[in-house]
């Protein structure tokens, strides 16, 4: 089943065409990677998919709904979660509160119910808290539960953001450069963790620069360059493809 399908997606910033009509498809239960040199439009595509930026033209279908012009919060309510390359954690909130906020779509109580603290409100907050504690323990965040997220080391903040996105219990998880700034050891652990998500049935779409990570865990790789898709295929096929090597991997070889 196709979870996400975007077609002919276009976006310009002033005169700069960031995306020139891109098609992507993400199959359920897979890990799909989006790679490409800096400035190729990867993060822009993620911003359009998640509704953080409005798209100029194109269509996005998510779980059978045409969501291309929906506001971000409605896409999230349908089960799309994301993390950010430049981290958007709630700095002055505790780790526990950050993760609890991720479970927002599973709560329903309104303003007045909240103000009078009806039993139903206390119940749903308790359930949010308990689920957040489990996620925190999965990601080894338990020691930091009551610390302000902004005070923690970068690697931990990344994990907090992933835990927050997972609290949404997403059908599709968009990870924007999850390994950026992590040590080799942390990256290896992250790879294992993402693979574990797939086994739990979460579909993952990620932007990543770390080629070892991408090639190690992805089922499908999409390559962008200058706002266009230049290739897609299995990791093995991508490694062999000349256009990709020239546009992207070639740079690394030259440097190495």
């Amino acid at each position, binding site marked *: 089943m196709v979870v996400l399908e975007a077609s002919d997606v276009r976006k310009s910033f002033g005169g700069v065409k960031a995306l020139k009509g891109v098609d992507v498809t993400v199959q359920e239960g897979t890990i799909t990677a989006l790679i490409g040199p800096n400035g190729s439009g990867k993060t822009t595509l993620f911003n359009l998919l*998640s*509704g*953080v930026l409005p798209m100029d033209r194109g269509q996005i279908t998510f779980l059978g709904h045409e969501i291309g012009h929906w*506001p*971000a*919060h*409605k*896409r*999230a*309510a349908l089960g799309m*979660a*994301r993390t*950010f390359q430049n981290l*958007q*954690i*709630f*700095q*002055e*909130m505790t780790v526990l*509160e950050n993760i*609890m*906020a*991720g479970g*927002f*779509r599973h*709560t*329903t*109580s*309104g*303003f007045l*119910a*909240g*103000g*009078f*603290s009806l039993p139903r*409100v206390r119940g*749903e*907050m308790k359930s*949010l808290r308990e689920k957040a504690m489990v996620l925190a323990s999965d990601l080894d965040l338990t020691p930091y539960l009551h610390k302000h997220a902004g005070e923690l080391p970068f690697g931990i903040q990344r994990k907090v953001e992933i835990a*927050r996105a997972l609290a*949404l219990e997403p059908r599709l998880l968009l990870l924007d450069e999850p390994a950026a700034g992590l040590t080799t050891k942390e990256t290896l652990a992250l790879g294992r963790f993402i693979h574990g998500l797939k086994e739990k049935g979460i579909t993952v779409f990620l932007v990543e620069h770390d080629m070892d990570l991408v090639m190690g865990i992805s089922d499908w790789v999409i390559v962008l360059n200058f706002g266009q898709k230049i290739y897609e295929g299995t990791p093995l096929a991508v490694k062999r493809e000349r256009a990709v090597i020239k546009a992207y991997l070639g740079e690394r070889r030259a440097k190495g």
Partner: protein
Amino acid sequence: MKGDYLILLLLALVAFILPLILPGDYYVEVFLFMGINVLVALGLSLLMGYAGQISLGHAGFYGLGAYISGALTAHLGWPVPLAATVAILATALVAAAVGWPTLRLKGHYLAMATLGLGIILYILFVQLRGVTGGASGLSGIQPVHVGHYYLDTPRRYCYLVWSLVVLAFFFSINLVRSRTGLALKALHYSEVAAATLGIDVARYKLQVFVFSCVLAALGGVLYAHYITFISPETFGFMYSIKLVVMIVLGGMYSLWGALLGGAFLSLLPEVLHRLEDMEVVVHGLILLLVLIFLPGGLVGLIQKIGERIRGSS
């Protein structure tokens, strides 16, 4: 977290005992007006500390509550509870009409819109002479009574005001701990991230803004039916500023900041009679000093002292 309810219980006790032991009506009245200020400040504190938005026109909403409820009882002889309800609902509608377009935008458009609205409302209070009595004021506002029991002494009215203050704090503490509070906190620190978690940012900002205006209107209603005579200068821009100073001084990131800041600025003019003409200067000075030396406000100061005591023992 549990501490909040303990503080609330303490506040309720103090509010019950103080009117009994204060020496004379004058002091009870000061305490009564303090309650009204704290009530209005509490709403602004939710808006500033949790939604990260500023209203520079809260005096206008305070005035709307006072004038609508006052005029309905003075001109049309409506019973106070009905007039008060209509006044609060009407203020909520005005707030929604201003908040709806402005809160959808990022940035401080609400501050500008409310600044303008506050000034317009003030002009209306002065100019709509037939309804508001104009610059010379509106008299004949009915006092609050239950049957033949009139709440016309400072002590009796004080209990009404502070009961509502305690109730408003109870509601707000609960709110902050609910789903709504979580959403408000989240959108304060990152609207983008909040939206990608399913939080309808504009809707939550609007809800808290309308609630904050409802508390301001309630404060206005309480003021009007106690003093039974109101005139426009009470509801001018300077009161809007004074409210913002209360929040900053008390501490923006705690609801109790509204209590401390509201209490402090209510007492200040009583202590410094001579500074009446200098009030603006004093407020400016407080704002400046707090922002430089005490960014957490009085609540932040108390927390710091508490930590130090715990640390040293």
